[in-house]
Every structure is written in C-alpha cells, then in structure tokens.
C-alpha cells in the first residue's frame, strides 16, 4: 500500500467519526444553549476542513516539489482528482434529494427547524468523505502501487 492508499483507508473509516460526531455536538450545543461563538466556530471549522481536505495532498506536493522522494505522483494525482469529482457528483445528488424529500414531507407552505440546514451540510460532508474514500480505493484496486 502506498501513502495515498493508506490515507484513503483512514479517510474512509475515520472521516465519519472525525466530522460527524464533533459537527453533531456543535449543532446540539447551539440548539441546547443558544447560538454562541464557540459552536459556530467549531461547526465552520469542521465543514471547511472536511470539505476542502482534498486540497491538502496537492498543497503538500507543491511544497515538497524540490525534494527527491515522490509520494504523490501523476497517477496518484489523477486518481485523487477523479475520486473528488465522483464525490462531488454524489454530494450534489444528495443535496437535491434532501431538498426534494424535505419539500415532500413538510409541504411547500410548511417550515423546518433551522438546525436541519447544518445537519444536512454535515450529512453531505459524510457522504463526500465516504464516496471519495471508496472511489480512491476502487481506482487503486487491490494491489495498489506494488503492481
């Protein structure tokens, strides 16, 4: 397994726990104790970090360009890009589905709790992370870099 594949596995398993639990806690704190700086900052940090984490390997690669050891080559970049694109496609479908379901359940004149929006965003983050990890693992196949 190369580094990117290990990261994909980590992303796949830890992504859910790392983003869903703290994000859910932030929404719950805001709901229970009222809106304050800490839960909003916590939630914003989690969704920005989780949603844009895919940029991290590219930035690292650019910073490490001068060094001899290449951990993230062109093939890895292509696989990573494809995985991110697939994840974004699924994320978009998830948002449209969530919206239509909410419409169908509540009706166009009804109202929903304001907490539904951050929870939908958190759900989207989980979907994005899972699909990205899965797409990376599928593209690497079983053998990974050794082949």
């Amino acid at each position, binding site marked *: 397994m190369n580094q990117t594949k290990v990261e994909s596995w980590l992303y796949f398993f830890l992504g859910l726990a790392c983003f869903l639990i703290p994000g859910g806690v932030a929404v719950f704190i805001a709901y229970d104790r009222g809106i304050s700086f800490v839960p909003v900052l916590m939630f914003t940090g989690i969704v920005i970090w989780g949603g844009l984490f895919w940029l991290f390997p590219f930035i690292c690669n650019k910073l490490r360009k001068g060094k001899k050891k290449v951990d993230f080559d062109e093939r890895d970049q292509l696989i990573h890009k494809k995985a991110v694109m697939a994840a974004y496609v699924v994320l978009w479908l998830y948002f449209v589905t969530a*919206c239509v379901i909410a419409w169908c359940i509540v009706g166009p004149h009804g109202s929903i709790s304001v907490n539904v929006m951050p929870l939908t965003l958190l759900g989207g983050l989980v979907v994005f992370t899972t699909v990205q990890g899965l797409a990376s693992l599928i593209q690497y196949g079983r053998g990974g870099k050794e082949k």
Partner: protein
Amino acid sequence: MSLKIKMQSAKLWNRCAMEFDRPLACAWGQKWREIMNKVQREAWIALLLVVPVWAICGQLPILLIYLEGPSFLHLFSFACATMIGGLSWLLLLFFNRKRSRKAKIEFDERDKLILIRSTLAGYTVLWIYFIAACIYVWLSVAPGRSISVNVMPTVIVEGIAVFIFTQSVTTLIQYGRGAKRSELKN
C-alpha cells in the same frame, strides 16, 4: 429592359449585402472563432447569459410549487433542472469526448484538464457558499426556531448560479487572453 434593371438592382443588393450586412453579421462570429476556442466561447455564454437567466428563472419551479402545491411534475422538473445545472460539466465532458473520437478534435487533453480544474474550483466555491448560507441562516434565526422549507431549494438554485459563474471565470482565466492564436502559431 426591365429585366436588365431588375438584375442590376439584384446585383447591387447582393453587393451591398456583401459590403455591409455580411461583414457585420459574420465579422463578430469569425472574430470569436479566431480569438477563442469552443470551450472559451461556451464559458463566455455561460457567464453572460446562463448565470443571470438561471439566477432569475431558477426560482420559477419553487414559486410554482409554492403556489400550486407539490405535484410530481413540478418536483421532477425541479430535480431534473438542478441535476442538469450542477452536473452540466459531466455532459460537456461526455459529448466533447464523443465528438473528438469521431473526427475533428476540438476538445483535447488540455481542454479536458482545464475543464476538470475549473469544475473543481467551482465545487470548492460552491461548498464555501453552502457553508456561508447555512451559517448565515443559523445566526440570523435562533437555533430553536424554524424557517420556511423553501429556503433549502432557493439556496440550491442560487448555488448552481455560483457554480456556473465560478467555473466559467476559472475556465477563462486558465485559457488566458490569446489562447487560440497561440495555439495556431504552434
């Protein structure tokens, strides 16, 4: 005699058309084709036409559902419109690949790379937009209260406008100003 006059007037008319009308009509198109490639033209059209039209008319299905109630047709049209709006780049990629396989290659690897990069940039900005919209709603309405269900589709529809805008701007930035001329020189 009259036939001769008619022919002469027809010739004159044609000449006038050649001199004045055609250059006006064709010069723009020709200039466009000279300066820009197909993807750049599409990006300009999206930026100047699709984004404003989408931002205004995209709300129409939401209004229809609000006024007439949620029917299958309305929901289906909304779902289809948002899916096509958000995943239009996928169609663009598919059709251009198919066309380039046939004969004339207008969409090469560089175009594909630019499209992928601009799509990723568009999605990144879209994600930030969703976060901003969510936080704004959360802060403006207290967490214990509720909002109209129509806020969600409105955010999604405007998100498509943001996505197309960012994608088009990024495409144009990546191609730069003199893309096609430099390609022809090479």
